[in-house]
């Protein structure tokens, strides 16, 4: 309310100054309807506003004045000097009261009955006689003594100071558009008051609300008068003037930069001092002009309390809206752009986020929900947080929506982590409101919000905990016109990257701490335990590559963050940062999404500004593929506990890892013990011949004295995997972040702080102990017996590869397929298995459907069926048993699986 009051005072003071002059003009041209109209409207506004603000004394005075003015306007009363004097007195009184309010923040005590009586007399008495005039004058003089003295001693100076402070604090008053809004808003609110108070004084005709023409006329009149208003220290300036000034300053900044560029490198020159001065002044000027555009974010919030109130009434919810940091300033252009997104999100919180009081009490929460708006500065950005303590996002429902809307296949949606699922509410056409209310769910959703925010180079993040609430964090730049940009060079071209999206710069060189690693030709950087996808700018933009060896050259990685992805851009060189004026590209270039604009540098050259969002999108195909795959594997192994991993060097220097449980022993085998036979490298090991395979597809060993060998045991049979060097055994999780297409590896993960390839042991078992080998193998090894066959159905390559060797170790002949469809094809092809192990969550046909199919029909009706799933709710387990699964094992419980297999077989045998 305080802000409102200050705004009101600023405006009213301005209006009063105009009224003074208008009244004088009126005296000279008593019949000028236009002038009368203006005065009436101004007083009416004052009256209306003070009614609204609860300033009763002021309202009464203004009301009486307005009545007289109304009569003037309607021609029922002559504009006599006496009458004008009384009106002027009334205006003075209003001014006195206003300045007192300015000082103290509340209405001063005082008796206006005489003045009001004078005004009323004027109204009633058809001719204000000498007595009235005398009374009027004497009153005036009496009042003058009180009034003017205060004015002179305290009122005026204090007022000026106050105004200055007020402006410094808000900067709103001078900007006409914004400042005039409250006035317009207030008027309709005030009119009922007008009517009711008019009704009280029966003698008066009801005051008409000012007509549109009057409004216009009034708007024009103050504009003409404004220059002569000396008493107010704030002015309203047309936005266009400011915009123009801004453009000029931008050009000045450019010219300054140009000058600086020219003298850069000359340490000692005669221009140094004046140039420095020019530079400082330019910077100050730029800041000053920027300031004129700055507005408190509270302006964008002003309507929210009302919206929230209406919503809470409409929906029977109790909602507290807490707003913090309303004074945080940002560019009015940006303010305009975020107004709607903010409103939308607060609506969302009120509509979807917060529960009804009954639900809240049931959930053990306080009856009234809270929506928190918080704005603050952080490193050249404004952060706006909108949080509620409501029910949070229902990730399960979003998942269903993703599947329903066919945004992702079911398996894909199931594989997403909750955090990832939540991001889908930014997907176009996504609204999870179960019923479409008049508040939200009208198809305009969070996607529009995100687009709007990203348009202004902002980013939006969402965090939600089911049952506890949702927090949306918006990060927006302070201004759009001039940004700080990092200049980089790639090949022969220079580019600007907006500084706000740059997280850090990493210098990379071969054999240095940070080096660019390649996974299937995709560059990655391992930075503080995170695998960062890299984008080669030259490739992305199709820049000429005159130097083929550039891969090994020193280069820089610009670590960039947009919305929800972080990636690195590989460039050749990084220059310094420069303030640039963002200019939009011409429409015929607007389809190039990698650029957000262009600019002219200090040296006069034109360069393109890279758009991190666009770049992220243009690699999106690759990126999302990688991500989805990686996420699949990740979520599949999310519930993996840490397991001991053996780290070793494979063919080259890159580290590889294999779960230690699969490795029987580590040996160092002298080269001279290795024999070659039947195309295999063999070694006599513990009285049997053990095949040795090397990594990769070939089977040759390099020359050296001895070879480190990992011995894998497979039901009495064993083989050795020749590696370069055994490194370490660590406890870690395998989160495959980059899938592999290379045979023999499952993909890459960060293990022990490095990008590490995970060995696909199943591949090497096949390679070493394939059917051909079995046929050739030494019967003395005890391989004659027919091994029981098991069928493993799992869509996750990772799991198939992890479990197949386990089963092999248990003595099974494992056939692994990636889908239920493939499995059923095997059944129809007449394959026989003693055991079937199936995943539950699979694309197309899930485990349940697969099981019921198997049980209902075909030759596998009595084959034991074990479900292997990461979902182990009671419901799932019951359902599995109903459908015909013999047992149900959690995916991460390998011991459990082995036990289950054994018991299933025992039962069957029994």
């Amino acid at each position, binding site marked *: 309310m305080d802000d409102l009051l200050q705004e009101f005072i600023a405006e009213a003071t301005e209006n009063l100054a105009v009224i003074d002059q208008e009244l004088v003009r009126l005296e000279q041209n008593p019949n000028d309807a236009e002038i009368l109209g203006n005065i009436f409207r101004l007083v009416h506004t004052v009256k209306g506003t003070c009614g609204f603000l609860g300033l009763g004394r002021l309202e009464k005075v203004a009301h009486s004045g307005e009545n007289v003015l109304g009569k003037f306007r309607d021609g029922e009363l002559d504009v006599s000097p006496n009458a004008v004097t009384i009106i002027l007195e009334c205006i003075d009184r209003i001014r006195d009261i206003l300045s007192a309010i300015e000082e103290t923040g509340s209405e001063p005590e005082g008796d206006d009955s005489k003045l009001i009586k004078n005004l009323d007399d004027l109204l009633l008495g058809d001719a204000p006689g000498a007595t009235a005039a005398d009374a009027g004058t004497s009153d005036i003089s009496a009042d003058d003594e009180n009034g003017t003295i205060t004015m002179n001693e305290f009122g005026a100076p204090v007022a000026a100071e106050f105004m200055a402070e007020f402006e410094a604090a808000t900067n709103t008053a001078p900007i006409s558009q914004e400042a005039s809004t409250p006035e317009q808003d207030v008027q309709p609110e005030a009119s009922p008051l007008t009517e009711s108070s008019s009704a009280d004084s029966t003698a008066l005709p009801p005051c008409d609300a000012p007509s549109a023409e009057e409004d216009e006329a009034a708007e024009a009149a103050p504009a003409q008068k404004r220059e002569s208003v000396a008493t107010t220290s704030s002015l309203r300036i047309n936005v266009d003037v400011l915009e123009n000034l801004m453009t000029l300053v931008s050009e000045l900044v450019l010219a300054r930069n140009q000058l600086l560029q020219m003298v850069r490198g000359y340490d000692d020159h005669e221009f140094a001092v004046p140039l420095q001065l020019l530079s400082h002044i330019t910077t100050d000027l730029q800041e000053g002009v920027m300031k004129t555009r700055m507005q408190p974010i509270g302006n964008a919030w002003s309507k929210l309390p009302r919206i929230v109130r209406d919503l809470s009434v409409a929906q029977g919810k109790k909602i507290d809206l807490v707003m913090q940091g309303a004074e945080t300033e940002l560019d009015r252009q940006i303010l305009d752009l975020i107004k709607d997104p903010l409103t939308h999100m607060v609506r969302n919180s009120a509509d979807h986020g917060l529960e009804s009081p009954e639900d809240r009490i049931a959930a053990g929460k306080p009856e009234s929900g809270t929506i928190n708006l918080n704005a603050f500065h952080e490193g050249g950005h404004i952060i706006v947080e909108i949080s509620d303590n409501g029910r949070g996002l229902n990730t399960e429902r979003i998942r269903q929506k993703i599947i329903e809307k066919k945004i992702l296949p079911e398996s894909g949606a199931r594989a997403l982590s909750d955090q990832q699922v939540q991001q889908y509410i930014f997907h176009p056409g996504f609204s999870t409101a179960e019923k479409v209310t008049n508040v939200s769910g009208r198809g305009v959703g969070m996607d529009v919000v995100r687009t709007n925010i990203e348009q202004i180079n902002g980013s939006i993040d969402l965090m939600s905990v089911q049952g506890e609430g949702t927090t949306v964090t918006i990060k927006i730049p302070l201004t759009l016109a001039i940004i700080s940009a990092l200049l980089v060079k790639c090949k022969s071209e220079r580019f600007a990257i907006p500084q706000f999206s740059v997280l850090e710069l990493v210098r990379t060189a071969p054999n240095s701490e940070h080096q660019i690693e390649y996974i299937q030709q995709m560059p990655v950087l391992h930075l503080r335990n995170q695998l960062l996808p890299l984008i080669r700018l030259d490739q992305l933009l199709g820049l000429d590559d005159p130097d083929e060896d550039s891969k090994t050259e020193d280069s820089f990685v610009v670590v960039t963050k947009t919305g929800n992805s972080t990636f690195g851009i590989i460039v050749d060189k990084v220059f310094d940062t420069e303030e640039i004026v963002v200019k939009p590209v011409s429409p*015929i270039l607007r389809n190039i999404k*990698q650029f957000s604009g262009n600019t*002219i540098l200090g040296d006069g*050259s*034109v360069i393109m500004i890279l758009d991190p969002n666009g770049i992220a999108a243009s690699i999106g195909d690759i990126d999302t593929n990688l991500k989805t795959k990686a996420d699949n594997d990740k979520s599949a192994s999310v519930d993996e506990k840490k397991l001991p991993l053996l780290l070793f060097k494979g063919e080259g220097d890159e580290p590889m890892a294999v779960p230690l449980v699969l490795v029987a022993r580590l040996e160092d085998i002298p080269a001279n013990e290795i024999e070659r036979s039947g195309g295999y490298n063999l070694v006599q090991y513990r009285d049997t011949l053990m095949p040795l395979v090397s990594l990769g597809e070939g089977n040759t060993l390099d020359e050296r004295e001895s070879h480190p060998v990992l011995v894998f045991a497979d039901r009495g049979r064993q083989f050795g995997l020749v590696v370069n060097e055994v490194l370490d055994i660590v406890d870690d999780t395998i989160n495959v972040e980059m899938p592999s297409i290379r045979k023999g590896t499952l993909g890459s993960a960060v293990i022990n702080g490095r990008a590490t390839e995970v060995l696909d042991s199943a591949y090497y078992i096949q390679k070493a102990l394939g059917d051909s080998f079995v046929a050739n193998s030494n019967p003395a090894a005890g391989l004659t017996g027919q091994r029981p066959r098991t069928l493993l159905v799992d869509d996750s390559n990772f799991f198939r590869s992890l479990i197949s060797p386990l089963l092999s170790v248990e003595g099974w002949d494992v056939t692994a397929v990636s889908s239920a469809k493939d499995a059923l094809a095997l059944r129809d092809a007449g394959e026989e298995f003693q055991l079937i192990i199936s995943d539950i969550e699979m694309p197309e046909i899930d485990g349940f459907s697969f099981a019921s199919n198997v049980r209902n029909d075909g030759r596998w009706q009595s084959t034991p069926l074990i479900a292997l799933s990461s979902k182990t709710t009671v419901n799932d387990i019951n359902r599995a048993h109903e459908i015909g699964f013999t047992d149900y094992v959690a995916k991460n419980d390998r011991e459990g699986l082995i036990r289950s297999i054994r018991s299933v077989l025992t039962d069957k045998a029994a």
Partner: protein
Amino acid sequence: MQQNTNAAVDEMPDGESLQQILTTTVGNQTFGIPVLCAQDILRPRPIARVQQAEAYVSGLINLRGRIVTVIDLRHWLGFESADANEQMHVVMEFEGDLYSFLVDSVGDVVKVPTAAVEAVPPNLPAQWRMVIKNVLRHDGELILIIEGDALLTELSNN
């Protein structure tokens, strides 16, 4: 821009109107640009390339603090490309943005009667008809009138 074109029409004493046309050559052909459409004529200057842009966009130049998008007329019209560092720029303004058309050389300004303007023959290639709407006969030579607006409208909409 259309208005400008009209403004370039002079009234002759006998009532016949004249149009001022800047002649230029691109490839082996003479083209005309209505004088009042041409905001600037610039000497060859370095052009900043724009990666991923359509091939007919040569790049960007800086004209007194404003960025001008350079359009390679040779490419658009299907001529072999020339060294842009030797080509002249004819700068036009279109919907608030500046564009430059690269031409091989700039000739004289000729005054021709408006009546001499004929419609472009329909057998010209489509690319040509997008930028050329009228043909003039002057001193026994055919001058194809380039209408930047027509082309830029087309390009901006795509």
